[in-house]
C-alpha cells in the first residue's frame, strides 16, 4: 500500500497508471532496498543483486520506446520512479539515473540504428550496465575545457585521457565517454575490456556509499568507427544528457525529503522530553512545518515540470531551477530531520544521516548549486556570469 505525503492533493493530478508506477517502485523499495541498504552503505558497496530485479521491473530507460524493451512511460511516471527510488537511497537512484538518462538516452538520441538495436535492449534488461564520463580531474564545472582526446586512425579512433567521479565506472560494460576530436566534443562508446582502458574505483567517500564511483583511464585505447555516437557533436549534446538526469534528480531528492520528513515526524511523536512528545514543542513544529512546506512546493514544481516536458515545452533553465531548489531544500530537510532525532539521528538505525550525507553529492553533481544559479542568472539578465 503506497504511503506518501500529499498535503495539496497533487495525487488528483496523477493518472491511474502513474499512481500504479509509483506504487510498484515504492513496493520494490520497501521489500528489496530498505532491508539491505544500511549494510551496503556501511560496507561502501553497491547492491549489485538488485540490478536484475530492476531490469525485470523495467526501471531502466523507462521513458524510452517499447521496441527497445523499455516501458515507454511519460515524464511524470519517470519522475515518480526516481522519487520512490531515492526515498530508498540516492545511490540506487543514481544508478538508475545514469543507466537511463546518461547512457540509454544518448545512445537513443545520438546513436546509430545499429548501436540502438545492440545496446538498448541489453541496458533495459540490466544485462549491460553503463556509465557516463564527462568530468575530468581538472574540469568539473567547466566541462567545455575537457582534455580527453580522440584522434582519427585507420578504422577508428585512438583515445587518450582520464575521467574522474564516474558513477558505475568500475562495474560498467560500456562507458559513454566525451572527448575532443579535432577540438570538438563527441561522444564515444567504450567497451569494457578493451586494451588500454581501466576503471579503478574511488575509495574513501562519506557520501553515496552504496554507489560505485570511479576513475576512467584511457591509454591509446582503440575505438572502432562504429562506436562513435554519429549524431553527437559539441558540448551541447553532453549537456542535453545532463538535462535528462537533472530532471530525474529534482524528482528524486523529493523522495529523500519525504523519507526524512516521515522519520522526523514519527520520532517527534514518540520521543518524550520534559512533559510531552517533542513534536508538541513549537520549535520542533516549526521544523516539521518547514519540511512539509518545502516538500509541497517541490511536488508542485515537479509535476508541472513533468507536464511541460511531455508537452515539449520545458526549457533547460526550468530544469536548473528545480534541480537547484530541490537539492538545497532536501539537504536542509535532511539536516533538520537529523536534529529532530537528536543523538539517534546519527545512527544508521534511521535513514536520515545517510540521506543527509548522500545529498551533499547530489547537490554537487549534475551541475553544482552555484552553476545552476549562474545558468538562471544569465537567463533572467541576459548577462552570462561565466568567464570564457
Amino acid at each position, binding site marked *: 500500500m503506497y504511503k506518501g505525503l500529499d498535503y495539496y492533493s497533487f495525487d488528483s493530478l496523477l493518472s*491511474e*497508471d502513474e499512481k*500504479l508506477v509509483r506504487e*510498484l517502485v515504492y513496493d520494490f523499495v520497501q521489500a528489496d532496498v530498505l532491508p539491505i541498504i544500511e549494510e551496503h552503505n556501511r560496507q561502501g558497496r553497491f547492491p549489485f543483486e538488485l540490478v536484475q530485479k530492476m531490469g525485470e*521491473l*523495467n526501471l531502466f530507460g523507462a521513458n524510452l520506446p*517499447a521496441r527497445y524493451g523499455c*516501458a515507454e*512511460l511519460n515524464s511524470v511516471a519517470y519522475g515518480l*520512479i526516481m522519487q520512490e527510488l531515492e526515498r530508498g537511497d540516492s545511490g540506487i537512484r543514481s544508478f538508475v539515473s545514469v543507466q537511463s538518462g546518461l547512457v540509454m538516452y544518448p545512445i537513443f538520441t545520438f546513436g546509430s540504428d545499429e548501436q540502438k538495436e545492440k545496446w538498448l535492449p541489453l541496458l533495459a534488461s540490466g544485462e549491460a550496465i553503463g556509465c557516463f564520463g564527462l568530468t575530468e580531474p581538472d574540469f568539473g564545472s567547466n566541462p567545455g575545457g575537457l582534455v580527453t582526446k580522440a584522434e582519427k586512425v585507420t578504422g577508428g579512433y585512438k583515445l587518450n585521457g582520464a575521467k574522474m567521479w564516474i558513477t558505475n565506472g568500475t562495474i560498467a560494460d560500456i562507458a559513454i565517454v566525451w572527448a575532443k576530436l579535432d577540438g570538438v566534443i563527441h561522444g564515444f562508446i567504450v567497451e569494457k575490456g578493451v586494451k588500454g582502458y581501466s576503471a579503478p574505483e574511488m575509495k574513501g567517500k562519506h557520501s553515496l556509499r552504496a554507489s560505485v564511483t570511479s576513475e576512467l583511464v584511457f591509454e591509446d585505447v582503440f575505438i572502432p568507427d562504429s562506436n562513435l555516437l554519429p549524431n553527437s557533436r559539441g558540448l551541447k549534446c553532453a549537456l542535453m544528457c545532463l538535462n535528462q538526469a537533472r530532471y530525474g534528480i529534482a524528482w528524486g531528492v523529493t523522495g529523500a525529503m519525504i523519507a526524512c520528513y516521515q522519520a522526523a515526524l514519527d520520532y517527534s511523536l514518540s520521543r518524550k522530553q520534559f512533559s510531552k512528545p517533542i513534536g508538541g514543542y513549537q520549535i520542533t513544529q516549526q521544523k516539521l512545518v518547514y519540511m512539509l512546506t518545502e516538500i509541497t512546493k517541490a511536488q508542485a514544481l515537479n509535476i508541472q515540470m513533468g507536464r511541460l516536458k511531455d508537452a515539449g515545452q520545458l526549457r533547460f533553465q526550468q530544469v536548473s531551477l528545480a534541480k537547484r531548489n530541490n537539492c538545497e531544500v532536501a539537504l536542509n530537510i535532511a539536516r533538520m530531520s537529523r536534529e529532530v532525532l537528536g543523538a539517534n539521528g546519527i545512527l544508521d538505525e534511521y535513514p536520515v544521516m545517510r540521506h543527509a550525507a548522500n545529498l551533499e553529492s547530489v547537490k554537487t553533481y549534475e551541475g553544482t548549486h552555484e552553476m545552476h544559479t549562474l545558468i538562471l542568472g544569465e537567463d533572467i539578465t541576459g548577462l552570462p556570469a561565466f568567464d570564457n
Partner: protein
Amino acid sequence: MNIAVCVNHVPDTAAKVKVSEDHSGIDTAGAAWILNPYDEFAIEEALKIKEKTGGTVYVLSFGPAENNETIRKALGMGADEGIRIKPGTAADSLNVARALAAQITALDCKLVFTGKQSVDYDNGIVGQLLAELLGYNCVSVAVALQIDGTSVVAEREIEGGREVIQTTLPAVITAQKGLNEPRYASLKGIMAAKKKVIQEVEAVTMDPVVVTQSFESPAPKTAGKILGTDVQAVPELIKAIHEEMKLV
C-alpha cells in the same frame, strides 16, 4: 481454459477506520484503498496456471468506478481482461456472488479464484456462495494447489496439520496466504494494462438477504485492573468474577 479471478477493492486496514456520522457505513473520506491482500494470491495462482497451460485470465470486480484501480493493478500483473460489475442498489455478499456468478457463466470459466476473505466486511463467504450458485466444487482457504487436466489436488491448513483434498473442475478455489508469492507488476505490464479497456456490465439485482441496520464503533476499552501478579491474587480474582463481573 478460461480462468476467473474475483478481486475486491478495500480500505487499507492499516489505517484507522471511522464510522460515518449517520452510522450507515464507514467514513470513506481520506481512506486509502487497496487490492484485497488475499486476492493477490488468487491472481498469482491464476497467472501461474495460465503460464503453464495457456488460457485467458479474466479479472472481475463488483463495485464502483474506483474498483478499476484494483482491476488495473491485476492487469499490470499479467491478467488478460478486466470486467467491472456496476452495483445495483443493495449489495450483500449474496448479491455480490450472484453478480459475479452471472459473469463467470457468461465467460465460461471452469476455474474460479477468490481470496479467502475480503478485509472490508470479512465475511469470508463470497467464494463458497459462488460455488453453490455455479454448481462448482469448492476448496476454501487453499495453501497449495495442483491442477492436472480436470483433476484438482489442493491443500488446506487445519489445526495441527494439512488436509489434502482431491476434486475436479469446474471448481472455485479461495486463496490463503502461503499459496504462492505474488509477483510485482512490471512497468511494461502497467503500460500494457493501460491500453486495455475495462468492460463494464450491469449487475443483476435482487433483494439482499442481509440488511445492515447500523454501524457502531466498538466501545472504547476501559482501563484494566491488576489484582496482583502471583497466586495470592487468585481468591480476589474469583471473587471479582462472581461479584463484580458476574460471569459465573
